[in-house]
């Protein structure tokens, strides 16, 4: 019986077996790279050998047909090897320069946009959403698709000041991580407690412990042990919901979208940055989220027009200043932008540095 088969606890496999021989041969011996055109990298090894990488977008959530199609292409042009990037783009590598254009043509023909290299808008980092997660306030695949449809030209061209890393997260937990632009769910009302369920499913001390502002108290409701939320304190973070599904935070109207900018993981030039809230109260308008997409395009447009070469979104804004960011994008500045969480003072302007 397969039920009794002990797993082979093999961990991760050795990558070498899956690497193109040119990579194996020049492992650790790469000398420099450039980008002959958007979507294409050329890495040259100390040995003089060259590897071309053609990068294309995918939908990440792939049906087996899509994956098999990618495999077909890899067989035809890349000696049967392919890889995916950390952002779920697909990379085809070939040492044969003559393969590059046909490969691009083929990918485009099959509906995989070629791009995402250098100073382009990369593929949006993707989370689970309504398709799979148990706590989402919105979908992820849909948001990503709707946005990438609008940003595909920016994916295919390298016309941004620097790389643009966009992320989405379908709840405030933020599995999508920090981004130059992040499109995240932001709840705007305290959870509505389903008291019927609390008694049954919730470990009350655990959920009380999760609340960052101690807004949850044990309570007797209709004679049964339940919970209550201090609505004055609650910051609508949704942290109580995963451990206690009766704390219903998701709401078709009050779970909104917020947009954040200027997150940065790299330590390149500036230190890594967290993304900063710029717009909230945006309707969770499935299936194409036009209001959110509009703001994203607006921000990207301002960045593209105004930032300097190599400035990431957050660095650009630091240079031009937040006043100018709000001016250029026309986004309203509100009291919600002013940090009032622990240590929020660090986000005040404690200097005479001013932007006019």
């Amino acid at each position, binding site marked *: 019986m*397969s039920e009794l088969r002990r797993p082979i606890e093999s961990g991760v496999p050795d990558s070498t077996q899956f690497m193109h021989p040119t990579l194996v041969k020049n492992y650790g011996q790469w000398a420099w790279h450039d980008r002959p055109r958007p979507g294409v990298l050329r890495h040259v090894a100390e040995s003089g050998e060259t590897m071309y990488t053609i990068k294309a977008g995918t939908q990440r*959530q*792939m049906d087996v047909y899509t994956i*098999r199609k990618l495999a077909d292409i890899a067989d035809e042009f890349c000696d049967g*090897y392919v*890889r995916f990037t950390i952002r779920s783009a697909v990379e085809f590598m070939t040492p044969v320069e003559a393969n590059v254009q046909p490969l691009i043509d083929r990918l485009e023909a099959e509906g995989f*946009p070629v791009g995402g290299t250098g100073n382009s808008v990369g593929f949006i980092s993707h989370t689970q959403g309504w398709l799979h997660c148990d706590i989402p306030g919105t979908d992820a695949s849909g948001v990503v698709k709707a946005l990438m449809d609008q940003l*595909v030209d920016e994916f295919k061209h390298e016309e941004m000041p620097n790389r643009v890393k966009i992320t989405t997260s379908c709840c405030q937990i933020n599995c999508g991580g920090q981004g130059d632009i992040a499109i995240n769910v932001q709840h705007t009302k305290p959870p509505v407690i389903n008291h019927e369920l609390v008694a049954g499913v919730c470990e009350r001390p655990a959920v009380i412990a999760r609340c960052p502002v101690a807004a949850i108290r044990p309570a007797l409701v209709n004679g049964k042990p339940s919970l209550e939320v201090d609505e004055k304190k609650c910051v609508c973070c949704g942290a109580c919901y995963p451990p206690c599904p009766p704390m219903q935070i998701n709401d078709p109207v009050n779970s909104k979208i917020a947009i954040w900018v200027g997150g940065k993981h790299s330590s390149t*030039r500036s230190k890594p940055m967290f993304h900063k809230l710029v717009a909230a109260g945006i309707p969770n308008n499935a299936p194409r989220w036009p209001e959110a997409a509009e703001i994203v395009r607006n921000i990207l447009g301002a960045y593209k027009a105004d930032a300097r070469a*190599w400035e990431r979104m957050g660095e650009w804004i630091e240079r031009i200043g937040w006043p100018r960011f709000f001016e250029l994008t026309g986004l309203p500045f509100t009291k919600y932008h002013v940090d009032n969480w622990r240590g929020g003072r660090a986000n005040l302007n404690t200097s005479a540095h001013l932007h006019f």
Partner: protein
Amino acid sequence: MSKKMPETPLLDQLESGPWPSFVTGLKRLATDEGKPYADYMKSLLGQLELSYETRKGYWKGGTVGVFGYGAGVIPRFSEVADKHPESSEFHTLRIMPAPGFFYDTKTLRDLCDIWAEHGSGLIALHGQSGDIMMQGCRTEQVQQAWDKINAMGFDMGGAGAGVRTAASCIGPARCEQACFDTLKAHRTVINDFTDDIHRPSLPYKMKFKFSGCANDCANATQRADVAVIGTWRDDMQVNQDEVKAKVAQLGRKEFINQVIRMCPSQALALNDDDSLDIDNKSCVRCMHCINVCTKALKPGKDRGIAILVGGKRTLKIGDLMGSVLVPFMKMDSDEDYERLLELAHNMLDFFAENALEHERTGEMIERIGVVNYLEGIGLELDVNMIAQPRTNSYVRTDGWDEEARKWNDRKTNAAE
């Protein structure tokens, strides 16, 4: 007698447009009549359309697993199984790919075949932590699917309060900036923690990520409890002729703007002959100038890693970034990789013993203080750990002389 395709007017709007459509993929599976997943996916589409209509999710968790392991399957049971019964169970198997996300096409096809037989036919390459997510599997199929995947040489990824699937940048396999072997480090560390991945019993999750340089293509600093990042100690390598070529290409003013002016530590100056004057002592190894001048500049030769600890996302106290705990370790020999592994174990053990329930490493350090954490894992203080010394006088310093002596002894020993 196959199930009828549900009406999906909302989802259908996600089929137009130039970007590859997951809806088209789902429909392709749903309409692949005769395949075990066809009705399954029709039902799934129905539920998803409902979510789009009502703007609510309908999955809940539960308990599903494979024999021998305590984690790796993300169980999903539908709350609307009455309306969409076939997809009432839609679990995900998290499978760890090879470091760097490399595949040959046979492997990809084999995975597809397994999933066409036992699952939904829907695979995500990859999850944000780096797993192959084989999405959509009925409880009864989970073990069989797993057995086949496992037999292919793949193992299950992390979930729950254990060590999680790691991620690494492509590193030396194709990147000239890699200051250590990210793929080897990834494999060395993770494959020694399989027990903690598969039988989670930590206070909360623990993630490792490996980036070959400060560009941090693996998002390690902010998204890993333990971020291993390549760097170098000696002077960067310069080819002044290529520098001059770059100055000629960009023009002087623009070269100054893009390179000199953007160096975060003012370590660069342009000589009057258009060669570069590099103050390597001030350089913070940020990679910027190297990125701009890929032919002219390179990291130095004395390479290794820095380790940053404590990164995580939002829950409980707001996002935390990792912070430097080890500013430099050589990563040349196998012994070096073993030392990294040993340190990783110390970190895990200390975390296991000292973190509160649902507390990440970063939060624990925030609570107990980084100095206590260092002592706990047997690491020594290093000035690179701090952005700056304390700015407040709120500290009892009566052990000053003793602590100063320790430092001086270390320095003397190091000099000997």
